[in-house]
Each structure stands twice: as C-alpha cells, then as structure tokens.
C-alpha cells in the first residue's frame, strides 16, 4: 500500500485530507485506484494520458522522469511536485 501526498491545491478533492492510501505498482495504477474515491483527481494531474506539463512525480524520495509509468514499490510515498530545472 502506497501513501500518496495530495498537493494543497488538490485537497478540495479529498476533503482536505493530506495523505491517502492506494494500491498499484505504477503511478498510473495508483491514480486509477484513487479516482473512484476522489473523482477528478486524475484530470487535475494528467492530460492526454500523461502528467500535466510542469508536473513531475517523486516516488520513494526520488524524482522520476517516467511520469505515470514510474514503478511504485510497496509502502512507498508518492508526491506530485512542480518540475524543476537547473542552471
């Protein structure tokens, strides 16, 4: 069971709840598990079946460029964050 951290801007969908539990081996599967409980969450995070531009996902403490395909280990934390660029 993964722990998904809901960004403050999306907590209107979760009744203000900061973290939710979800099952799935990828970020896509995690969102599919959450969508029935929190309708609209996937649409707020994704467009055209990929993460929205400017967003990225961090799983188990590491930023991933794999987006929805990112593997999610058992009991990992999942965070949706702004994408970063360096100089």
């Amino acid at each position, binding site marked *: 069971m993964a722990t998904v*951290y809901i*960004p*403050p*801007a*999306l907590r209107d969908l979760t009744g203000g709840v*900061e973290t939710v539990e979800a099952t799935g081996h990828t970020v896509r599967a995690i969102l599919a598990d959450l969508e029935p409980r929190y309708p609209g969450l996937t649409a*707020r*995070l994704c*467009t055209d079946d990929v993460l*929205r*531009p*400017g*967003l990225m996902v*961090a799983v188990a*403490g*590491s*930023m*991933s*460029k794999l987006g929805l395909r990112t593997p999610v280990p058992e009991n990992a*934390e999942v*965070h*949706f*964050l*702004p*994408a*970063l*660029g*360096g*100089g």
Partner: protein
Amino acid sequence: MRQHALVNHRRPKNEDRTLIGLPVAERQGYLQRIRTMATSEKRKYKVIGTRPIRHDGVDKVTGRAQYGADVRLTGMLHGVVLRSPHAHAKIKSIDTSAAAALPGVRAIVTSADFPDQVGRIVELGEGAVNMRHLSANVMAHDKALYKGHAVAAVAADSIHIAEEAAKLIKVDYEPLPPVMEVIGAMRDDAPVLNDDVRMTEMGTVKPDAKASNVAAKFLFTKGDVNAGFAKADIIIEREFRTATVHQGYIEPHNATVLWNADGKVTVWISTQGTFSVRQQTAELVGIPVSDVKVIPMEIGGGFGGKISVYLPPVAAILSRKTGKPVQLLMDRAAVFEATGPTPGSFMRVKVGATRDGKIVAGDAWIAFEAGAFPGSPIAPGCMCVFSCYDIPDARVEGYDVCVNKPRSNAYRAPGSTQVAFAMETVVDEICEKLGVDAAEFRIKNAAKEGTRRVDGPVYNRIGMLETVEAIRDSEHYQSKLTGPNRGRGIATGFWFNAGLKSAVVATVNLDGTVSLIEGSTDIGGSRTGIAMQLAETLGITAEAVKPQVADTDSIGYTDVTGGSRVTFATGIAAVNAAKEIQQQMVERAALLWEVDASTVKYDDGKIIGPASKSFTFAELAAKIHEVGGAIIGHGTSSAAEQGGAFGTHCVDVEVDPDTGKVQILRYTIAQDAGTAIHPSYVEGQMQGGVVQGIGWALNEEYFYDDKGVMRNATFLDYRIPTCYDVPMIETIIVEVPDPAHPYGVRGVGEVPICPPPAAIANAIHAAVGVRMRDLPMSPPKVCAAILQK
C-alpha cells in the same frame, strides 16, 4: 567523510596581493594551511581524486579553441537583430521596404516568417515550455514586452550593411505603461502583459480566471503551521527584496546556421545543450528534429543562461531565405537586455524557535519576476526556502509574475539564492536574539537523512550537517576577527541537483588509449571529469582517454549541461561504457589465449587469465584486431536521480562606515561534493559560485529608468566582481558519497552561489549592526542603513 583543506590555485597573483596585505601572523597561517592541504589528500582511487591537466587546456590557453564567433563559412552572411526601444508597446506595423532596398541586404525576417505556435506545450528536457511564448520571445509578435525584445532581423553581405539596414526598418509602436516590479504587477489594476496568461495552480486554471500577470501559484504545507508558531518562544518575520541580476557569462550568445538546399539545417552555437537547441529550433521553424544538426562550439560560460534559444531560429529563417549560412552575434547590451536574467523578488519569511534553539515553524510568501513570459524558478524557490532545516510545521506560498523585463532564465541553483538570502538572514537574527552560536544553531536544526521537506519528499543521505560542522571546525571560524567595523557571518544553502539523460561512446585504440565521445557540452571541465571516471573504471590513466563533445548526429540524446548533472549522470554513462569495454576485452583475451571467457577476468586495468596469463590494457589493445573488430563501449544514464547538495559559507567583511563599501576580508566555503572526481574543478566551481554570489550580494543589479529602460547594460556599469574585489576563496571539500552514483558523486556547480548574499548580510550586521534585507547591498544602501541606525 574526508576533507580537503584550504585551497586556492586559481589566482596566484591575487593570492600574492592578498597575502601581502595580511599581517605576518595571518600570512604564515595561510601558508601553513596550503601546506596542510598538500599533504592531507589521501586517495581511495587511482584516478579519481587526482588533478590531471585538462584535456582541452592547451587549446584554451593558446587561443586555438574554437568558439561560436570564430565560425567562418564560405558565403556566410552577417545578421543584425532590430530590438524594441520600448519596454512595453503594441507593434502596429513593420515596414521593411527601405531596408530591403539597401544594396547588400539579402533577407529580412519578422515574426510573420515564423510558424504559428498556438499554445503548444513542449517538453524540452529540463522542463515544459509554452511554444507560443518561446516563439514570441525569439521574435516579438504583436507586442514588445521588454526593452531589447527582438522585432526584426536582417542578413546582409557585411555586418555594417546589416546594421545600416536595421536602422531603415520602420516599426510603428504604440507605447504602453511598463510594469517593472513584482508586487505592482500583481495588482488587479496593473497593465496585463500577455492576454493568454491566467493563473495556474498545479497545472490547472480556474474556469473564471481572467488574464493576469500572475502566471502561477504554488503552495506547500507541512503539518500545522499555526500550531507550530504557538510553540515558539521567539518569532522573527522580515521582508526581503532582491534585484534582477544576470548570469554574466563572458561570451555573448551566438549562432551560425546553414539551411541547406536539401532542407537540412546545421547550427554552430555556444550552448549548454545541443539536443535542446535542436528541438527548440526545429519546433520554432516547423521542421522535424532529425533535419537539424547542432554542432557545439566551445562555451565561454553559461550558468543556466545558455539553454533557451534566441538566435538559431532567426538565423535559420534568414538562411532559408538566402540559401547561405547566416551568423548572428549578440553584443553585451543585447545579452543584458534580451537574455538571461534571474528574477528580482519580494519575499516575506517568518520563523519561530524555542528558547533552547529549536526551529518549530516556518512560513514564507514569495513572488518572483518571471520577466515577459511565465516561467520564473518560483517553484524551486519555494521548495528550497526551508530545505536546510528540519522544521516540523511549515507553509510556503509562491507566485510567478510577469513584468516588462527579459524572460527570466536559470541561473545556478535557480530560485535558491534569493530564498537563502531571506531565510538565512532570519536564522541569523534568531541566533542573535537567542544568544546562540550560529553554527551550533544550524547543526541543531540541520536537515538530515529522514527529514521531510516542506514540499513532501524525505531526504536520502545528505551532507548538510557535515558542511556546517566543517565550517564550525575550520581554522577560519575558530579564529578571532579583530578590528573596527569588521564582522563575520555564516550561511548555508541547498540545491536539488538533477539526473536526467546522458549518452557516451568509447572506442579502444590500438595504442591503448580510449576515444570518448559524449553529448554533454563542457562548461567547467567536465570532459576531464568524465574521462577520469572512464579511466578509473578501466584502470588506465586519465591521459589515456581522449574525450570530445560531439554534435547531435554523432551521439545519443543527452540532456543539457545544467542542474549540476554532468559529472553525475554522464559519469554514470561513462562507467557503464567502461564496463562494456571490460567485458569485450575479456572476450578478446579469451580468444587470443584460446580459453573459455569464464576463466578470464578484468582486474584494475589488467586482463588476467588461467595459468598466470595476463595482459595490460595497452598490451591487449594492440592485439584486439587479431581476433575481431573495434571494441566500442556504449553507456547511457537516465534513471538515476541525485540526492541534494549543501554548502555552508563563512565570510569576514570590513565595512567603511563613511562610504558603505563592503570589503571581503576572508571567505571559506565548505561543500558536500559526494566524491570529488577532480578536486581542482570542484574547488573551481565552489570559488566561482562564491564570486558570483558576492557580485549578487554587493553590486549587481539591473538599473531601470521610469520608462523601463535598462541604464547599465555594459560591464562597465553592471559591475561583476573582478580579482581586485575578492580575496582567496578557501575551500573545504566535504565528501558524503551519493549512493545513487557508483563513485558517490554529487553535483557541485550550483549550490555554491546560494549562501553568499546571506553570509555577507550577516557579516555586515556583525560589523556595523545593521540588517540588510535588500539586494544588492551596494554602498549607498549600506551607508543609508548605517545613517538610519
């Protein structure tokens, strides 16, 4: 953990000058520290940790290295870009007829020559970009959004004809009021720059959102910030402003482009990312990426400012129109007015701590100037502001705001220097109020493995604590600072560092050397750093590797040289290529010895077989063609992501109370490099970052008049530090290996710029008792603060 002691190899003349100015006792102490350095470096590896001469050194010091402006092609035309004299204006019409009639003029372009980009969002390696905005930045569409915004361009037989022709282009402007300051731009009644910009939050726009200068809002929370502040015995809340500053690379932007008759486009350019230039150019002129080849020239500095394209699409369209190669070169004014800068900012930071020196809550409100189009580094700024500390309850709110300045771009740890200035100044004030040592306070509150950041993720192994301890234990921090108007300050900083994608190809030569081709453009000596990792893995010398940076048709996709990623990620690719070579060398030795490959092993540069058979790498390399073709190792890196990098700085200053001038007396930086591949390059990055941070702290700023015109767009008036302004920058390399890299590398290029403004502000306070919260802390401001004390 290992520490290199104090080093300054870069400026012996300056070092001598500084030493001569020191009292005898201090001079002897410094020389003793240099000697300590020479004997204290113990090496775990054979190549890593040594200081070989850089492979590109001879060409650089003899002037033979080829930069973008050195490109000369048969029939090459010279181009000039006409730029807006207004900071904010509608473009009602452009008449190019007089310019086109000038003899020697070959082509003129305006935005009408570029494909309509609508509002497509394209992933460009280091982030998603709105192509309509990128296109409008390369060549203004219906509005000029900053002084210097490109409006048209001319290609002619000579640069002089092109300059004359540009003057003949008639642009009918309708000037609009400029919006130059972030808070003013956020007001409801502020003139709106872009009618397609609406505030987004986590990628979504509210249905009723109106066009606005506020392009994005970010919010991060951790715990209950109000409950956290309720536990505090002391709360400090302060406001800060930082000026717009430029990366200040010495080499201006340049591009030479040939649009060939077969439709293939070749770009010669100084860039931090050839593949990014390829994609941006292809997207902006509307051709497939495979039709564009980008050839990287040597690069005279970038610091984040040479990732976005400005000139290649313009030169490409000019070349398409003329059938000839076209070269565009910026002058310094264009570089200042139309490229770069890092955002000016307004920040409010509030921190609460208990009487015993534990931070219990933090709250920050941050607004960054994005420039003409959205995209400031406000998100990383928000994510960095509390990143050095373990704070149980925190909240950060940030805004990306358009103003009539050049579109902002990355600059070493983008966003982190601004917020470090605010946070570390507040931390220093808390230490002052509580009467605790600034280093011990940071040690007590340091983020460490397991600490959850305000943006959510938990740190893996990091070296924040170790860098503060290194400063605390340094001779500098332990020494006594005496004299009037002198003070000492410390500050710390954080940057994420990136992984991203890299590719290399390595080929074994018959003489035992290895040719290494990589896609990472080399800004800071990375060719040698990558070659050393290949050499270490193969068990050969760094000099036996011949690295070169290749064009986009000659190497696999490689992300930009940015995010402090090259030594980490391209290094991993080189290690992987070396492992492929090891395997092939084992197989060749087995064929030569007529034994099973399973009985052969590769060990530290030797290939060892049964019955005491062995080859050195060079011996086997000479024989590989007896039993096969070329041995080529391929390596890529894409999955690995770095842990963060931290640095802690200590600075002594003397303030002239009559003029407000701040003199840096002594500066020491301790930084976690994971594992220092080439210590001289690590030290160079640390020292260079500090010097840029000193400039940001004390002198650098864009001066605008009331019409939004920059009045100091030269290096004479935009004052970056020179060797006469800075003393030796003493370095302490802390090594807390990053487990994500086979040798433990952490990127070092960005984080050293983060702490200097705060460290210097804290030192100024210690010297003369005034708190500076407005960058730059230039003499007039310091003088005014002293007078108001």
